[in-house]
């Protein structure tokens, strides 16, 4: 085990104000169980889970309420005891609608139902358990990537035949402004993370381990050094320079091991790497050793307008309004409510939306911090091109999309865009470049889907 400095620097990147001091020193606090939870069936990337309970049912904490629905999908378990009030389509933070269970946690079970006791799943000893058992446990615990995208973890940990994982990279960069959830996790639950790493190493067939942490988190680096001090095998802590988007999967792989993931549809496993967020790793440790599925997560509640910024451990499905109330409410009027960080998070329209497995932060921005687009003409200054970590000509893409030339945007490799926001961040004309890219990607995806459907229909004929 040793600590090394990152040898590779990717091109581009920006330096937003991190504003982490707001919540950095706040220990993780557990929120009292809210009276109502809204548990979405779509908390992960891929097909939403299939709801298997109905209104009026009484469910026990940890019970499967949504079944895995396809290969890229995970199951959903209820985060608390309670009675299903209704199943409705609810708006998620990203703007999509999905079935959600409205759970009344104050309801008492009818009749004589035995008190739930003991662990939800049978605890496993990872040393003796088989690789398949461990993988199955990750799957049935409903674990997905907790960094933001929510990719099903069991799929990631099970590389397709012919591909081998050489490096397991732990993402502790947390480069999003304001967010400190992963940081607190690394400080407070370092042994858990170590246990998770050992389990994952076993599942993946003993890859080398790289723990990537940005240089501005010396305490976290120290905590990791202590926790991993006596681990054997090829394990390194890689200290990354402070640069957004250091937490992006592709850039982290480059910064830690110097490998470049080719353009989509290539995945990190194609260059022998698996990247997991530290939160996910801790969740795996819990699922295996304690038999505790992924039912709650740490969410940073911060931003200038919240009274007491906190790192809250809250059950998945907690409404934003409950989180805000737990953090002392609003200090000043909120201009923008953001689910996630300021660079890639989603602005939401109402605090009635609830958290998911991927909600890493909830930011309440006052008017002074909520910048608005005014969108002047592009002056071709090239700042976005220099800032783009994917080395795209963002200005060109934005101009093409602005004049409805989606084909032109596609030719400029818009599909490679990771929507990190560095372009819009650095644009002196305040152009919503990232949004232009999103628009292009959206219509290209729609077109490809339409073409596929057409081809499928033709094949049927």
């Amino acid at each position, binding site marked *: 085990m040793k600590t090394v400095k990152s040898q590779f620097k990717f091109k581009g990147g920006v330096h937003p104000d991190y504003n982490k001091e707001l919540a950095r020193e706040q220990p993780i606090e557990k929120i009292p169980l809210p009276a109502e939870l809204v548990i979405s069936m779509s908390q992960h990337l891929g097909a939403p889970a299939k709801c298997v309970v109905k209104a009026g049912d009484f469910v026990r904490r940890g019970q499967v309420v949504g079944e895995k629905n396809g290969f890229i999908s995970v199951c959903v378990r209820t985060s608390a005891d309670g009675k299903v009030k209704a199943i409705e389509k609810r708006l998620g933070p990203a703007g999509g609608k999905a079935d959600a269970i409205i759970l009344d946690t104050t309801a008492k079970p009818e009749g004589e139902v035995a008190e739930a006791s003991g662990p939800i799943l049978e605890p496993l000893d990872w040393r003796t358990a088989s690789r398949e058992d461990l993988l199955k446990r990750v799957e049935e615990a409903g674990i997905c990537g907790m960094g933001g995208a929510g990719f099903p973890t069991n799929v990631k940990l099970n590389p397709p035949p012919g591909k081998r994982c050489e490096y397991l990279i732990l993402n502790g960069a947390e480069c999003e402004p304001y967010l400190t959830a992963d940081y607190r996790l690394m400080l407070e639950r370092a042994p858990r993370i170590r246990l998770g790493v050992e389990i994952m190493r076993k599942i993946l067939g003993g890859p080398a381990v790289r723990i990537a942490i940005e240089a501005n988190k010396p305490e976290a680096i120290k905590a990791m050094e202590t926790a991993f001090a006596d681990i054997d095998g090829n394990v390194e802590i890689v200290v990354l320079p402070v640069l957004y988007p250091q937490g992006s999967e592709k850039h982290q792989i480059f910064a830690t091991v110097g490998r470049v993931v080719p353009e989509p549809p290539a995945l990190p496993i194609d260059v022998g790497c698996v990247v997991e967020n530290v939160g996910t790793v801790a969740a795996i440790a819990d699922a295996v050793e304690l038999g505790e599925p992924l039912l709650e997560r740490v969410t940073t509640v911060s931003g200038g307008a919240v009274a007491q910024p906190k790192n809250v451990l809250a059950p998945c499905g907690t409404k934003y309004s409950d989180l805000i109330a737990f953090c002392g409410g609003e200090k000043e009027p909120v201009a923008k409510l953001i689910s996630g960080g300021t660079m890639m998070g989603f602005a939401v329209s109402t605090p009635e939306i609830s958290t998911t497995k991927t909600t890493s932060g909830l930011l309440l921005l006052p008017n002074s911090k909520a910048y608005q687009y005014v969108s002047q*003409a592009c002056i071709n200054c090239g700042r976005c091109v220099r800032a783009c970590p994917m080395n795209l000509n963002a200005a060109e893409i934005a*101009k*093409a999309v*602005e*004049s409805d*030339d989606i084909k032109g945007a596609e030719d400029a490799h818009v599909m490679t865009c990771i929507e990190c926001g560095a372009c819009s961040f650095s644009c002196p004309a305040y152009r919503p470049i990232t949004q232009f890219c999103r628009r292009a990607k959206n219509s290209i995806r729609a077109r490809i889907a339409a073409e596929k459907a057409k081809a499928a229909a033709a094949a049927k004929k």
Partner: protein
Amino acid sequence: MILVGAVLVNNFVLNRFLGCCPFLGVSKKMDTALGMSGAVVFVMTIAAAVTWCIDHWLLTPNGLGYIHTLAFILVIASLVQFIDIAMKRFLPPLHAALGIFLPLITTNCAVLGAAEINCKQGTGFLESVFFSFAAAIGFGFALVLFSGIREKLAHADPPRCFRGIAIALVTGGLLSLAFMGFSGLVKLPY
């Protein structure tokens, strides 16, 4: 010298203002501009060779210098037709891209202009062919430059009344202005 002169200094489009129709018509996309340039280079070079032969061996000996314009039009028109057919057969994508503009070369004053200038200068065969070739390169150069600007202008947002060809003309004028800087670079006899 002829090359530099014809490409930069006495550029057909930007200085002699010959061939403005395809200059404006085919310059919206760079790919078509490149194809068109190729076609013009090809047509102009061959046309120069053919017209030189006709002028020297058919018209001048018979004292028919006064009808050479007529004869040239005839020859160039058939030549373009021939290229049109050949291209459709051998290079269908290019043909599809050039579409309506290929027959336009038929009446392209640049082609005829080059032949006329050759005639007036009384230059030798090789020199004539080379001059036409150079002039066509110059035409193509201007066309490609212009198409680059127009592709950029496609994302611009000019006032409504200036959209389309109006703005292209303004741009062409400014480009011509810039090319004035080359004047005197090569002292050509014509």
